[in-house]
């Protein structure tokens, strides 16, 4: 068993025994803790644009863990960075969350773990603003992908490297794919759509790329469709972005999904990959046919 697992087991046992001595509650709440390791510490000073990293471990209590919520409280505003539904019955929760320091002097990060009995455990960590700026370099590239029936262009994209794969070359590279594109009819319109391998549901990626259903690793990329719908990132801002500051600032985690519809020509979509990298993708051109193409310009944190 990994050390973190042993820690969780010991803590759970201690908690359970401690609870038993109180002899009052029938249900045991989850227990959340910060992991040790290369993570942001309490009160640490991080410059604007600097990397924040939090490791959370939690035991379930007397019901499976069903919710992990991470909130950033800064300048009187509460932003939910992550509100994720899970179903963890054994082994506990082990999660690493990466973010970027904002310009606020003080940020309080609140981590809540809830189980199926709606019992919860909350831990917090405060991060302070350090000197200088730590906005980092970006990777910038342009490429063309094929829609689901297009066999002339690659269909699967690794956003971090810009490498694109076709069905013939994907074997062994499935775990690096972050983005696929397809066209389907929705709301009475043909929609060029950006998606990710992990997305399921009635508009699931496997409808259009059945082979993805056999992949053992399916990455989740979250697109900020709200910002995209309302054109909150201006084209000239996108053109001028040379560090990751715009990429981070334009991503609003409260309106995100692994499916982004209506990605017509000139749309700019903020996104965040499963690895925690922020980026912007501009649709330079998009067909509305299933054998068409989509030309993308991508800027992503290195």
């Amino acid at each position, binding site marked *: 068993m990994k050390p973190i697992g042993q820690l969780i087991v010991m803590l759970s046992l201690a908690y359970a025994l401690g609870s038993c001595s109180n002899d009052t509650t029938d249900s045991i709440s989850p227990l959340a803790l910060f992991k040790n390791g290369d993570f942001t510490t309490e009160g640490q000073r991080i410059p604007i644009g600097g990397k924040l990293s939090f490791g959370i471990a939690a035991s379930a209590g007397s019901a499976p863990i069903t919710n992990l919520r991470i909130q950033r409280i800064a300048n009187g505003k509460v932003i939910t960075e992550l509100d994720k539904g899970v179903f963890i019955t054994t082994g506990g929760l082990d999660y690493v969350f990466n973010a970027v320091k904002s310009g606020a002097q003080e940020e309080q990060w609140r981590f809540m773990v*809830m189980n199926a009995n709606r019992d919860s455990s909350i831990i917090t960590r405060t991060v302070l603003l350090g000197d200088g700026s730590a906005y980092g370099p970006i990777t910038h590239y342009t490429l063309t992908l094929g829609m689901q029936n297009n066999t002339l262009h690659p269909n699967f994209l690794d956003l971090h490297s810009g490498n694109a794969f076709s069905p013939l070359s994907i074997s062994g590279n499935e775990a690096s794919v972050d983005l696929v594109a397809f066209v389907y009819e929705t709301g009475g319109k043909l929609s060029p759509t950006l998606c990710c391998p992990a997305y399921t549901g009635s508009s699931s990626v496997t409808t259009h790329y059945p082979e993805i259903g056999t992949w053992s690793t399916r990455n989740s990329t*979250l697109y900020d469709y709200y910002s995209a719908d309302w054109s909150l990132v201006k084209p000239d801002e996108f053109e001028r972005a040379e560090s990751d500051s715009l990429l981070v600032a334009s991503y609003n985690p409260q309106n995100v999904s692994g499916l982004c519809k209506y990605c017509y020509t000139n749309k700019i979509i903020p996104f965040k990959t499963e690895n925690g990298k922020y980026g912007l993708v501009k649709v330079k051109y998009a067909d509305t046919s299933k054998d068409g193409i989509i030309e993308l310009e991508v800027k992503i944190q290195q």
Partner: protein
Amino acid sequence: MITLKKISLTVTTLLLVSVSAFAQYKVIGTITDTETQAPIVGAHISLGKSLTATTDNGTFEIFNVGKGTYPVIVSCVGYTKYQGSVLVDGTNQVVTLSIQLNPERQYIDELVVSATRKENRISEIPGRIELITPEKLAFSAAQTADEYLALLPGVQVSRSFGLFSHKSSVTMRGLSGNEQARTLVLLNGIPVNKADGGSVNWNLISTGEIERIEVVKGPGSALYGGNAMGGVVNIITQEPTKPFQGSVSIDYGTYNTQAYRAKLMGKHSNGFFWAANGLYQKSDGYITQSLADRLANPFIVKSNFDEKAINLKSGFSKSPKFKGEVDFTYYDDVRGTGEKVYQPEGNTTEHDTYQIRATLSGTTQNLTWSSALFLLEEKYKRVSEWYKDDYTWYDVQSVRRDLGLMSSASYTVKAHTLTGGFDIRQGEVDAYDIYYTSTDKVDNKGKIRFYGLYLQDEISLFDKRVTILAGLRYDISQFYDGAFIIHSPSAETSFMDQYQFSGLADETWSALSPRLSAQYKPNDSFRVYAGYSRGFRPSVLDDLCRSGRVRGGFKVANPMLKPEYLNNVELGADFKPTQQIKIAGTTFFSRGNDFLYYVSTGDSIDMGFGNRPIMVRANISDVEIYGLESDISYTPARFITLFANYAYTSAKIKGYKPISTTDTNNLTNKFLSDVPAHSFAAGAFVKSGIVNAGITCKYLGQRYVNDQNAYDDIVLAAQYPSAFTVDVRLSRQFFKHVNASVNIQNIFNELTYDSKGAVSPGRFITAQIQFKID
């Protein structure tokens, strides 16, 4: 000289004489058809003051009969009455009779109770009444109570998945196919529509208990108040006729569907009766989702079900002068809805239902009265889980409670039969959506109370050749304690935050529902009637106090909703050119106002997956409905019945009132959704010594998917395609106590799809073995 021996002999003789004078004998017999020799079921026998009826094998028994000569009268609908006598002379303990009845080939003019809240013959009511007789029930291949109604002209049953549907609705005469609240459904005269959504849990009513179904078409609000806007369906259950009787049956069918039923009942000569019915039914089910959904969603599983029910009834009824009855039903089901991620049963709906009723009725000279108390409590739970960007799991838990008092009294004086009474009903809902994968909890609750007072005069003139029916009912509805509150909102529900409410002032509405109809019936072969009636339907609690997701967007609660109204005029006639043929026709015209629709407010909201329109239920339109219903039945011989019917309906929105300046919709002249312009049904029932057979077919014409009459993304058309299905039922009795039957529904496997692209079960075959106990 008087000796002890003489005294003993005298006493003994006296005792023997008295014993023989007061000895109790039994009269048994068989009633059969002179033509087919088949036993006649349900024939009424009176022997002196004793009354009974024949059982499933045409036999009867009368106990505790003293010596003497008794008049015997045997009557049965469709047969000439028999009159004779029997001598019980004490020679034998049991006297056996064998009586044959001659078929009377004329249209069956049954008694119904629903049309006037008292017994009346169908031909004497100036209106369109349909009766599903025990024969039609026995020969139809229906699996559920509502499916029997699909064979009636102008009646539409929306049950997309057969036995696997957790909801169904029955509507008629052009009113939308998905609004059960516009048709009142009664079970033995007591309403079963829930105030929460106006819906009826049709699965709660076991087909094995049904004796007959009465359907009154057109607004029935003059007698029954709200929900009776389109018509009334009254399901009458069986009653015991023997000291001990019953049956046990086992069914097996498609998709590993199994049913186990037991029915025991008895009626004693002192008037006490009892009945106990039990049902357990389950099925492995099938996959309802479309191929595209199956490819897209790895969590799709079969939609299955598991249900159980028990009904206990007890009462007293020695004569029509007084009857009292208490009835208890418990029903519990779990129905899978075809998706499973982590939860043990996946997505399911559950109904945990209790129903208690107490009825009293009686007659004294010219007065007939009845009253009933009822309570229906349903604990509904829906488990919803799915996986898109991440895992979502939430439950809907709702307690729906309906209770009330209904009363009626009829008094006949000369040509007038006055019927009046009052009804009090209360419906309430206390529901919440509880999320397990986020912190949200959404409460919605509300109550609605109804008071109704009614009076009706039925006037028979010229030796019943002219009948006039005039009625009026006044109803008051009161909505109160409504609330919609969100606790600990996250992104799942925060978009509903602005629509919370509680502590509103009570809302009260009232409705006056008149009715006037007249009939001219010069003889038993012809009648013509005309009538006007007005119906209304108050809003349901779901529209008054719940905001949430609906298909196509988000709907906002509207506690200010008013009732919708329908004025109806109709003209009908029945004609019997021969004793074997009956033709019936009705034409009707209805104008509705303040009809309730979901309409876009013009605003939109991000529900977590992009903007969706915000809709609200509003009283926004006038509708115009007109149509024609025709029906023909032909009984060429006693053992065969043929029928066919056709209905045409036009239902359009005539006056659409936008609710805001940003509402760009205009529904004027659009057709109401889910209303077929054309429908027909036909069938043949054949009785024979080899096998009894029933074959029926139904055609349902195209129907618009939405009220905009616009192209639908999932149906891929503006209208659902038409559908034609054929059902067959075969049955045969073996060894007196065993009955075997086979039901084949949709024999040609015609598949239909609902608005979400889910598919019907297709051909569905069940076989049953039944063992009778008597």
